[in-house]
């Protein structure tokens, strides 16, 4: 076994940073669930609900993107 302990730390850190994506996953799931329930109850609101759902998903997703950015920063030695 050989290798750099700093490299190992970088990979572990990047992996830990991505834990935050779990929260975003839950958020996206909840918003899609809400939108789908609404659509099933009242199919007329399909278009309106879809655009608002995509917005909500984008907001939740941006949290996961922050985690991804932190992981990239560690992985590619930007800082």
């Amino acid at each position, binding site marked *: 076994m050989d290798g750099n302990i700093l490299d190992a730390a970088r990979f572990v850190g990047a992996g830990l940073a991505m834990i935050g994506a779990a929260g975003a996953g839950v958020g996206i799931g909840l918003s899609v669930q809400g939108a789908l329930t609404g659509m099933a109850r009242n199919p007329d609101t399909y278009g309106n609900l879809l655009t608002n759902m995509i*917005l909500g998903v984008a907001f939740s997703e941006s949290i996961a993107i*922050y985690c991804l950015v932190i992981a990239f920063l560690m992985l590619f030695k930007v800082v």
Partner: protein
Amino acid sequence: MDTQKRTPWRRWIVLVLMIAGFILGGIYVPVQPEITVAAEKLLEEPIAENFLGLGPLYLVNTIPTLAVTIVLLLVLAFAANRSLKKSQKTDLVPTGVGNAMEAILEMLYNLTETSAGTKWAKAIFPWFATIMIYVLFANLLKLIPGFESIGVLHHAHGEGHTIAELGGNWANILPEKVEEGGYILAPFFRGISVDLNFTLSLALISFFAIQVIGVRSQGIGYFSKFFNTKRMFKVPFFGAMDFLVGLLEIISEFAKILSFTFRLFGNMFAGVVLVAVVASLLGKISILPSMIFMFELFVGVIQAFVFGMLTMVFMAMATQGHGDEEHADH
């Protein structure tokens, strides 16, 4: 039957291409590319030593892609313009490119009207449509074969790949790695949305446009959202709280730039990494990259939509102001 049965031969092209990719992947083994966050330099030397007093300017590989994107958009605009002009002479029914653009723009305009109201739809729509079509082109152009795979070879400073000469000035890069004297590839084209400069500048444009629309609609009162002193003297405790909330609003306003930038960049960059890893993961034979490309198509369209849509919604929010709270006071 007098109508001849249509033979849908075109759909087989896709299957043939997928099989070709499957076989060619065995002959020319996919190489895991050097994944860098910054765009690669095509020329080692800077093209301008001291560009506008800011520092050296390098010819990076997103600049050719930017040129291609802008030329494509110009061609599309001219084609749509010509098609619409031609339709004006006859019966006002456009065909071909003009028809397609009219359908897309009408859909986008209706979307703007439903979420921003008829009054400000005319002011908001150009920003929304421009950003969306531009980002859509930027995201989809990345999927053309040859992007990020054909380029110039540089001598690697650290670990590099061996190459096989193909004749002329051309060479094929091999997956074997060597410690010294290897080469790394700097592709001619790299998708522009995989460059932080592009997404950051677009986010800044969108941010300033939001502020401008807000000031245009509410005058100087727009900034009372950030420095909220309306109730400061009437009800001191809640007034002070309003002021603090306003300061938080400033932070969230600037977080918009960050989230705009990194949402587009993160999604597109993750796509590049995914394709690279999947292509080199299974080695010789793999049909998976073409599947990932289909997913990339989906992600590119969704991200373009989200970028434009968020700009539009933030603009609509800026025009509306704090109408509800004023009513609550009375």
